[in-house]
C-alpha cells in the first residue's frame, strides 16, 4: 500500500486515458465522445465547422458536411491537426433560452428546488438569459443532453442553485457568469468516460469526472482557468474529505464553495421523495463539510417549509425509527471498534489505512450521536420521536447516513482493487461486511441488536 494513501491524489493513480488534453502531440478523438456524436444522435446532427485534416495534411472531411459513422471511426484512429471538438458544431444545439425552460420544468416537478430558488428566481433567470455560450460549450452540453437528458437537467439545477446562493450572498453580478458556465459544464467530463462502465471501472470513472470536466471546459470549451478551477472543486469538501484532490478549506475559493454545495444538495432538491428536509440534513450532517452560510441558508428554507406544514403525518412509526437508529448505532460502533483495534503508535501502511477509514466513519458516528440515540441507550431508554417533524428529521438523518455508508462501502470495495494492502486486509473485508449490512436497516423489520 502506498504511504500517501490517506491523502492520495485520485487523479494521479488513474488518469483519464482517452481524454485529449491539448498537450499530447497525437490528437485523436476521444472514443466515448465520438460515440456520443454518432450513436447518441441522429445522422446529420453534427456538422464540420471547418475542413478536418489529419497531421499528415490529408483532408478527412470538408467544411459544412454532416459527420457520418465512417468518419467517426476514422477520427478515433487518426492523429488530427486540431481536436475534433473545435472542428464541429451541433446543428440543433441546446440554446440559452432552453436553459430557462428546463429550469422551469424542473421547478414544476420538484417543489423543493422551486422553494429553494424562489427568493431569487428573477435574478437567476436574468443570468441564464444573459449567458453567451461558446460553440464548443454548446456542443458539449448538447452532447451531454443527448447522452442522458437527466445529465443536463442536473447541470441546469446545480447552476440555478449556485446562482441563487451567489445572489443571496450578494456576489458581484459579473462573477455570476463564471459560476453559471461552471455549473453547466461541471459534468461534461462524463462524455469522455465510458457511458456504461464495467462494475470495477464505475467508481474510477466517477472519481475522475470533475477533473476531466475541468480540462474539457478549459481546453475545449474555451473557458477561463477560473471556471476550470470551480469545476475541478465541484466534489471537494471543506473538511478535506472530497475528491479528486481532497483539498482543504483554504485551498477552495469562496465561489467554488458555492458550486460544490449546490452540487451536493441538488440530488435531494430534485427528488420529490427527499426534498428540502433531506437537503438540509445532508448539509448539516458533518461539521465543517460545507460553508456555514450555505448550510444556514438551506436550513432556514427547510424550517420555513416545515413550519408551513406542521400537521404532517408521522412518516413511519416512532418505534420503528428508534429501532433503526439503534441498529445503525450498533453497526457503526462495531466499525469503530474494528478500526480502533488496528491503529497503533507506529503509523504503518496498515494503520494508516485504518486511520483513513476511521476518518471517514467517525463523522457519521458523531452525526448519529447528535440524534440522541446514544444518550437514550445509556439511560436505558428507547429513542422515539415525539412529533411528526422530529420523526421526519430523524428519518432523514438515518437515510442520509445510510446513503453515505453505502457510498463509502462502494468506495472501499473499489479501493480494495487498487490497493495492495486493502486487497488482502481482513480488517477491510470485515469493515465492508459491516457497512454492507447497514444497507438492510431500512428494510429489516425484526430487531437484531440491542
Amino acid at each position, binding site marked *: 500500500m502506498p504511504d500517501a494513501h490517506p491523502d492520495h491524489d485520485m487523479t494521479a493513480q488513474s488518469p483519464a486515458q482517452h481524454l485529449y488534453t491539448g498537450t499530447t502531440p497525437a490528437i485523436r478523438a476521444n472514443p466515448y465522445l465520438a460515440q456520443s456524436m454518432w450513436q447518441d444522435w441522429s445522422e446529420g446532427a453534427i456538422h464540420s465547422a471547418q475542413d478536418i485534416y489529419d497531421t499528415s495534411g490529408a483532408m478527412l472531411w470538408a467544411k459544412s458536411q454532416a459527420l457520418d459513422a465512417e468518419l467517426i471511426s476514422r477520427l478515433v484512429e487518426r492523429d488530427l491537426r486540431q481536436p475534433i471538438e473545435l472542428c464541429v458544431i451541433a446543428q440543433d444545439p441546446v440554446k440559452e433560452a432552453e436553459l430557462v425552460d428546463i429550469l422551469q420544468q424542473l421547478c414544476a416537478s420538484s417543489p423543493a428546488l422551486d422553494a429553494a430558488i424562489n427568493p431569487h428566481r428573477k435574478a437567476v433567470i436574468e443570468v441564464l438569459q444573459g449567458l453567451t455560450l461558446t460553440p464548443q460549450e454548446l456542443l458539449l452540453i448538447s452532447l451531454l443532453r443527448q447522452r442522458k437528458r437527466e445529465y443536463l437537467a442536473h447541470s441546469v439545477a446545480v447552476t440555478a442553485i449556485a446562482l441563487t446562493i451567489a445572489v443571496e450572498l450578494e456576489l458581484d453580478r459579473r462573477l455570476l457568469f463564471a459560476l453559471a458556465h461552471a455549473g453547466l459544464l461541471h459534468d461534461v467530463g462524463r462524455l469522455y468516460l465510458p457511458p456504461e462502465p464495467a462494475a470495477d471501472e464505475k467508481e474510477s470513472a466517477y472519481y475522475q469526472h470533475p477533473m476531466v470536466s475541468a480540462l474539457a471546459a478549459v481546453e475545449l470549451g474555451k473557458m477561463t482557468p477560473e471556471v476550470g478551477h470551480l469545476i475541478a472543486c465541484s466534489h471537494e469538501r471543506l473538511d478535506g474529505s472530497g475528491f479528486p484532490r481532497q483539498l482543504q478549506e483554504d485551498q477552495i475559493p469562496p465561489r467554488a464553495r458555492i458550486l460544490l454545495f449546490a452540487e451536493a444538495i441538488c440530488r435531494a432538491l430534485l427528488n420529490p421523495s427527499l426534498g428540502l428536509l433531506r437537503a438540509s440534513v445532508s448539509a448539516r450532517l458533518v461539521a465543517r463539510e460545507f460553508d456555514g452560510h450555505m448550510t444556514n441558508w438551506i436550513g432556514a428554507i427547510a424550517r420555513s417549509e416545515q413550519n408551513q406544514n406542521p400537521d404532517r403525518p408521522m412518516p413511519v412509526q416512532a418505534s420503528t425509527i428508534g429501532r433503526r437508529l439503534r441498529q445503525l448505532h450498533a453497526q457503526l*460502533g*462495531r466499525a*469503530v*471498534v474494528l478500526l*480502533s*483495534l488496528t*491503529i*497503533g*503508535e507506529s503509523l504503518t501502511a496498515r494503520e494508516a489505512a485504518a486511520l483513513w477509514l476511521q476518518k471517514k466513519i467517525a463523522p457519521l*458516528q458523531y452525526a448519529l*450521536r447528535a440524534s440522541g440515540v*446514544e*444518550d437514550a*441507550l*445509556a*439511560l*436505558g431508554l428507547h429513542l422515539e420521536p415525539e412529533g411528526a417533524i422530529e420523526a421526519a428529521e430523524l428519518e432523514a438523518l438515518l437515510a442520509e447516513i445510510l446513503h453515505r455508508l453505502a457510498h463509502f462501502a462502494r468506495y472501499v470495495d473499489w479501493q480494495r482493487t487498487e490497493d495492495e494492502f486493502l486487497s488482502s486486509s481482513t480488517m477491510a473485508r470485515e469493515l465492508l461486511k459491516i457497512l454492507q449490512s447497514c444497507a438492510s436497516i431500512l428494510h429489516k423489520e425484526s430487531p437484531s441488536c440491542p
Partner: protein
Amino acid sequence: MPMIAWSNQFSVGVQEVDKQHQVLVGILNRLSSALDAQDKDFDSHKVIDEMVQYTVYHFGTEEHLMTQIGYAAKAQHVAEHQAFVHQVGEMVGQLTQGHGPSLEELLIFLRDWLISHILHSDRDLGDALNLAGVR
C-alpha cells in the same frame, strides 16, 4: 499480540484517567492472552472479578472529576457506567452458573464497550476536564 494495543487515539488528555484506562486494557489483554494460550492454570474468574473491581474504582474516579467541574453531561455518563455494571454483573452471573455467554463472548463485550466508551463519552469528558484546567 495484545488484544488492544494502547495508542494515542485512546488518550483523553487527562493523565489519571489515561493511566486507569491503561490498567483496564492491561487486564483485558492478560485475559485474552490466557484464553489464546489455553492456560489451564489461569483463573479467569479471578481476573474478571479484578476487572470488575477496578472498573468500579475507575468509574468512581471519573464521577468524582465530573462533580469537581460541574460536568453538564454527568447524568448520561453515569447512566452508561451503571448500565455497564448491571450488564456485566448479569453476564458474569450467567457465566458462573454455566449458561449465557462464553468467556470469549464476555471478553469481546468488555473490549468493545471499553473502546466505544473511551472514544466517545470519556473523550467528551476529557475535553471538558481539559477546559477546566485538569490534565
